């Protein structure tokens, strides 16, 4: 599974190269459920038919959509639960520009700048990378009501590409290291934070926590 994924990423790199751009993003939003003959989201297909690598995951959180939307809408909050993201600084402006500091192994970081591509209050936030980023990424989080009092269903979907060549490959490997696993863990942590006000850790002492380790690396 993991090998297949990495091969997929590498292949995508060579073939697609750098340019993805706005047009592709439109297509990306449009074909969210395309490419299959059942009701499952595309990222659950056995063979992922997207041009670019695609990951997605859903969780149900026992909180109203408005509360979840509001927290996510402030991108500065995301590093709280996103494993590889150390910091996000808002640039302001009408397009919701943000500069991400993304961890790479060996202590380096990857440049990523994003803007909001589309948002529908309490329902959806989509973002995409802009010029000056080492990777091309399009992300979308959707909030929809769960049955009864089960809260809100939150679906995260990320489509990404990295530049070609050896450098690109290593960046892809670093940032996109087991992206499915990461998306899953990130969403789980988001759920914990929203439902319990904290992120579960079995650390015995403060020096063993994720935050402590992040500060060490900074």
């Amino acid at each position, binding site marked *: 599974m993991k090998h297949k994924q990495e091969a997929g990423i590498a292949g995508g790199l060579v073939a697609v190269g750098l340019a993805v751009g706005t047009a592709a993003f439109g297509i990306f939003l449009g074909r969210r459920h395309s490419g299959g003959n059942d009701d499952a989201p595309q990222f659950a297909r056995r063979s992922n038919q997207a041009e670019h690598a695609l990951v997605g995951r859903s969780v149900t959180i026992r909180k109203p959509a408005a509360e979840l939307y509001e927290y996510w809408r402030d991108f500065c909050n995301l590093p709280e639960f996103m494993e590889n993201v150390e910091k996000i600084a808002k640039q302001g402006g009408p397009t919701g520009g943000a500069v991400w500091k993304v961890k790479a192994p060996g202590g380096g970081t990857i440049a990523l700048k994003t803007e909001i591509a589309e948002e529908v209050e309490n329902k959806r936030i989509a973002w995409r990378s802009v010029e000056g980023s080492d990777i091309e990424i399009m992300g979308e989080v959707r909030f929809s009501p769960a049955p009864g009092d089960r809260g809100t269903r939150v679906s995260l979907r990320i489509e990404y590409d990295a530049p070609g060549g050896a450098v690109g490959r290593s960046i892809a490997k670093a940032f996109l290291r087991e992206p499915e*696993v990461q998306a899953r863990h990130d969403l789980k942590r988001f759920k914990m934070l929203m439902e319990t006000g904290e992120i579960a*850790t079995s650390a015995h002492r403060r020096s063993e926590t994720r935050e402590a380790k992040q500060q060490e690396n900074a």
Partner: protein
Amino acid sequence: MRALTWHGTHDVRVDNVPDPQVINPRDAILKITSTAICGSDLHLYDGAIPGALPGDVLGHEFMGEVVETGKGSTLKKGQRVVVPFTISCGGCFHCKIQQYSACENSNPAEKQDMSATLYGHPMAALFGYSHLTGGYSGGQAEYVRVPFSDVGPIVIPDHLEDDQVLFLSDILPTGWMGAENAEIQPDDTVAVWGCGPVGLFAVQSALVMGASKVIAIDHYPHRLELAKQLGAEVINFKTTNVREALMEMSGGIGVDAVIDAVGMESHGFAVDNMIDMVKQKVGMGADRASALKQAILAVRPGGRVSIPGVYGGMTDKFPLGALMEKGLKVNSGQTHVQKYTQPLLEKIEDGTLDTTFLISHRLPLEDAARGYKNFREQQNSWTKVILKPGMEKEGAG
């Protein structure tokens, strides 16, 4: 501080480890006053549970005094509390419907993958029970960090002794839920496999719930004697053909409900059990489910199967046909401890439940390794061991 740590199969030691700290807002730190060794600890001790790492602090049945609290804790310093072995957040879907042992938020995200792969869903966290269930340090120690301390721990009134209430943490609610899961009706005959602490509490609970007859099965005379004193009829599986005896003792009907309080390390020399024993030894991960298989064959058509005994993986030659053809109903699970602590505390206070009759040994924490060895090897006489961190160490005995 001093703590009992796991180092490998049949190798546990009392070591120096760093004191725990408050990390999350809802945490509390307890100074342990009493902590028990559970039958589930023996599965770890025998190396039958995957995901334990050398140095892990064990212990999931404990109580103590609150010495520190995070700002989200509702506990107060100085309170005496018993802590459920299941770590539950209180706010997720499963906690809200009182399925606490299925809490979605207590097992750290990065530790959920192993159990999600094994079981299709991640497990909730448990104290001191391998990294499959979170890797939290346990309570066979001088101090312990208790997450979600506003949800789990129950405050104990001063007039109750540690020994009376300690088992609210695990085996008492486990025996109780084991009986509840047997869906006992007044005229029922209920059979309980295993007269360890869980089985004994299941026997007692089934009688309190109004079963007309409870039959307890084991091969240790003293453990069977304890079941008898509670009011059960007993069968020694070493000397008696269990299935035949159960048919006779239920008037040819078969027992209405069965409770497996043995779990994955069933004793006995039935052929399939021997094969499973070999597989378990060479790491092929077969659970030895001989008691459960016997229970499924013994229960009457349309009867109920309750499984408080712990299983971790796969088992071979499972009588699936008997389960389906007889139309059996199965209830199981790690105990939803938080659901039972308050009502069972009341039953201890009003004398409905006796919780001290099974305690055979009280040892200082320093003697924990000896406690493990004997609880495993001298099961007849070592029926339940309580460790006391404060207690003076006696001479070897």
